[in-house]
């Protein structure tokens, strides 16, 4: 079950499991809110490489106007995925514990 909602206070909220079958939905949702630069992952349990692809597109778009994609409340499994993929060096990632 994957849900995406917002923006609330300028933040888009992701929840559930962003697997490959759900990536297209995340892509079109984020494409229709191009000004948003922060995503809340507190309720997001899972992401696969297809989800990373969506984040990369958003980040590249924000970079063109001097911005960076920020992810907050990221669980440690998803932090591992960012580390293995090198995305921890690209995006501004705030783990859930900090």
């Amino acid at each position, binding site marked *: 079950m994957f849900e995406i909602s917002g923006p609330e206070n300028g933040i888009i909220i992701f929840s559930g499991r962003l697997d490959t079958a759900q990536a297209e939905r995340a892509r079109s949702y984020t494409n229709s809110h191009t000004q948003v630069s922060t995503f809340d992952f507190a309720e997001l349990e899972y992401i*696969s490489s297809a989800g990373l692809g969506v984040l990369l597109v958003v980040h590249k778009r924000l970079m063109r106007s001097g911005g960076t994609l920020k992810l907050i409340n990221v669980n440690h499994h998803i932090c591992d995925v960012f580390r293995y993929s090198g995305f921890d060096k690209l995006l501004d990632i705030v783990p859930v514990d900090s």
Partner: protein
Amino acid sequence: MDKGSILDQEIEVAREVQMSTLPDFMPEMAGYDVAGTVWPADATGGDTFDLAALDDTNMFVLLADATGHGIGPALSALQLQSMLRVALRLGASLDEGFRHINAQMVEDLPEGRFVTACFGLINTQTHVFQFHSAGQGPILHHHTSAGEFEWYEPSCFPLGFIEHQEQYRVRELKLEPGDILALISDGIYEYENEAGELFGTQGVSQVLEANHHLPMSELVAVLHQAAVEYGGGTPQRDDITIVFIQRTEQVLSTRKAEHEFKRSLDSLDDIFNFVAEFFISRGIDSSLRYSVDLAIDELFTNMVRYNADESSDILIELVQEQNGLSVSMTDHENPPFDVTKDGPEVDINLPAEERDTGGLGLHLVKEMVDSFEYQSDGYRCTITFTKQPE
């Protein structure tokens, strides 16, 4: 404090002790779904049951009903349960255990008190239930595929009634896939409606006929509810205990599960559920779930995308290994493509402008699993990976 409230307190303690001897959780035996519940008529009742895994293959099953209600019968039922568990754990045979425990209860129980009980062992390899039913009956073996109901009457006197003059031999029945063994106390069979008619074996068989596909924990609740509704407002007169044991259909081997999935991204939900169920039923460390889900997600997605012409299903096989598992995914393919070697190199240190997501999925799989192998005969390929706790 007056005498009445002291007595209430004492009864409350007795109830706590009795309830604490009921199983806290149902034993997990591969290939079996079991459930049991007691609804006492008084604060304490004469009914009890037990379900316990004695070892990997033997499950102890007991339903007992001591005459009367209240503390006296509750203590008798408790005594029987304790003695049986210890006897069987110490390796006594059912016949021996039965004879000695009966003799002990004849000695201990006051005149006019006795305990009816069905107890036995289910071997989860041979699926044979060996049991005695001392004054307890009927015991139901529901052959679900044939829709037949086989009722076993008691094979001898209740426990504590009289010393055995002969050796009673165990009875045996064999559970086929889907079959249900039902141990139900007379509180259900003798539930009366307003006209004084009994719920009976007919009421029980109707409920099972219509609901045997439910998980056993739900079936227990459904049967209880059906009896209460049949009673139509008449109060529960006797303790009610229901124990259901179903030999499930799916599991053929304890360590292995396999399933074919349609070549579509829509299958991912079913696949994740299949994996989740495997983890729970085998007690595999849930911290491995993420890596296993991700690896399957990436590999399955590749098979769907790059082999779109194929209409055949994709086979996924899970095998428990030590504290972790191995996963094999088999697909038809042409030409061979070794995912462990042939994928694009991923440089994770590139700046964002130069990054794309080509090959990223396979890169993550290699990072997150322990071993990763590919085998192909040129027509069918199997990708196998393993994951163990650190």
